[in-house]
């Protein structure tokens, strides 16, 4: 599989657009999942997927086979997601209003909800998780998503986001603290 991906990358580099099509078809869903977890917004995630492949195509000559092609795409996608979140914040100041709304949502979900099994997999918990993730800053969310969902090491994340290992570690610690603060009342109740 890796050999096939490697040869597709080589062919795409030499201008074979069919080879690049194969790479797009192969990696789109994974990039979408990452982008959605980073941005928390379906439309933004679609934007990230598209932009990631356009940037990857333009930068194919910079790709070094030391990391897998998927990891390289993840790096592009996570950096663009970060830019997108920060840009939204700068231009529209949506983030603050969004966080207020999410806090309201968190407050409005009643704790006296059904039994543990249903709670663990229920919509309420998922809504709360989503709301809690939306409370993280762009940097915290990016670092946490890459560590928790994508399994990248802290060192790899620091290199990908250009933040260094220590700052990345602290972003993850802060993210976990916030998630615990928001989710423990729910999952604690469910135990």
């Amino acid at each position, binding site marked *: 599989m890796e050999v096939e991906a490697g040869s597709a990358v080589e062919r795409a580099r030499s201008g074979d657009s069919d080879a690049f099509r194969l790479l*797009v078809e192969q990696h789109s869903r994974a990039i979408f999942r990452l982008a959605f977890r980073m941005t928390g917004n379906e439309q933004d995630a679609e934007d990230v997927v*598209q932009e990631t492949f356009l940037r990857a195509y333009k930068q194919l000559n910079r790709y070094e086979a030391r990391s897998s092609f998927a990891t390289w795409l993840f790096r592009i996608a996570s950096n663009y997601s970060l830019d997108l979140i920060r840009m*939204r914040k700068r231009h529209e100041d949506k983030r603050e209003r969004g966080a207020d709304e999410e806090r309201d949502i968190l407050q409005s979900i009643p704790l006296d909800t059904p039994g543990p099994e249903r709670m663990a997999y229920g919509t309420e918990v998922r809504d709360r998780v989503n709301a809690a*993730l939306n409370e993280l800053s762009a940097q915290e969310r990016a670092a946490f998503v890459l560590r928790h969902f994508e399994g990248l090491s*802290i060192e790899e994340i620091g290199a990908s986001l250009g933040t260094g290992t220590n700052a990345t570690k602290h972003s993850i*610690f802060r993210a*976990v*603290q916030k*998630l615990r603060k928001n*989710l423990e009342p729910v999952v604690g109740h469910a135990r």
Partner: protein
Amino acid sequence: MNHISEQQLVLLYYGESTEAATIDQHLVECEACRKEFRALQLVLNTVDSAPVPERGADYGKAVWQRIEKRIGGRKQRRFAQWWIWAPAMAALLVSAFLAGRLTHKPLGPEVAKNQQQIRERILMVAVGDHLERSQMVLAELSNAPDHKGKLDITDEREMASELLDDNRLYRQAARSTGDTAVANVLDDLERVLLEIAHSPTEVSSSQLDDLRQQIESRGLLFKVRVMGSQAREQEVAPAPQKNGKKL
């Protein structure tokens, strides 16, 4: 051993602890820390239930259809190749120009004058190309049809960010030759290119109006057109003269 901090537990959870064996041993012995670790595990395991909208097996094909016209096809490839090489060639010309100015050996006045004219001519060729490409971006945005929804400006954004690096280089070159008229236009252009490059990929009509206003308030499109034609004229003129350019 003292109780284990939350940070140590987080690193343990993700398999990145450098003291895993010691912490594991402590967890066996200390009920308070064990309880704390269980609470952390429960929260982090719950995060996995965060919903992600499903995308079907054909999603990759749909993504390809959206981006194909921008990167696929013979015409686009020619464009992409031109796009890759043109700024690099132009940057090389400007670098050569600046290097010539900084490292020139003492020459006779006639030879020095000729070389100076050749270098300035090379610079104007590069600046002419650059202004022509910038004009395309500005004109695309200025002439975009009015719309109620959002307008996709991904291409313009990409071009603007590519042009930014070249613009800085040309502006420095123009300043170093004392060509303040060119340097001032490039200065104005840089601000607008920066704004375009940092805009969202899809802009609302009000955001588009803001961009247009910035282009129009500086009379930028007009200046870029005029300066571009002047550069082109100098390119074909037999003997370039060093004249001040006023707009």
